[in-house]
């Protein structure tokens, strides 16, 4: 009887650890899914912001230069 109870406890431990492993595995897979972006590198390149202003100061400085 004692042996049978010990066996039951071992199997329960295996089941609990299996459950914990699966739970953690699922949890981290879901975290990875949340964190991973769905934007492709091409789209990311397209939406990269840029400054629309032109450096007119430099253009004015250039216009003051001479051609010989």
């Amino acid at each position, binding site marked *: 009887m004692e042996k049978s109870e010990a066996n*039951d406890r071992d199997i329960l431990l295996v089941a609990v650890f299996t459950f914990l492993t699966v739970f953690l595995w*699922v949890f981290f897979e879901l975290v990875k899914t949340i964190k991973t972006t769905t934007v492709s590198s091409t789209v990311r390149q397209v939406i990269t*912001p840029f400054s629309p202003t032109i450096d007119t100061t430099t253009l004015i400085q250039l*216009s003051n*230069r001479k051609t010989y």
Partner: protein
Amino acid sequence: MAFNYKTEYERYRRYYQSIEPVLKKKESHTYTMAIFSFLAISLFGWYGIRPTLQTILFLQREIADNKDINAQMESKITRLVEAQAAYQDANLQLPLIDQAIPQNPEVLSLVSQLKNLAAATGSSISALQISTVPLLGSEATPSAATGGKLTEIPLVVAISGPYTSIKSFIDGLFAMGRIATIQTLTVSPSRDETPTTKASPASGTIVRLVTKMNIYYMPMPTAKKT
């Protein structure tokens, strides 16, 4: 030998019967329930709950990303319109950039400008040394192609003349449309200074200037062959 169930039953009966008291025991019943519950939750969690939650979270993330992309695209469109307006405003001045840093080396034009500058300032070019550069067109070998990258051309100019002319020449270099950066500048008394070439005290003695400088050009980036 034929299978005789009676003898076989008698043989294994004690095993069948030994399970019964175990199953009737309350502790065993509880353990079995708990074990199968954990295993069932693990199994359904892996094959049922995980893919469902993953799909839900992926779609939520995709929606959030698409909203973000949409906002950034709107912002970029606005900026493009602003950039187009700024480009139109500065359109007349844009050739100055090409003049300052051309797409081709345009060394001949530079030499001509240096010659005119020397003539205008009253000095004379005694030597001019330029490293090997393509005079026209693109680079000869694909490995040497530097499309879209600022390329520098080293240049050594030796001029001689009165000090004031040399100074004017240097000022002219700084004010020249073509951008040139001076690396080194050496001023020394001219060796071939003779009484006839000696300038008046007002204009100063004849000096020789050797300047090492860099000029730049930026080839247009070539489209990659697919």
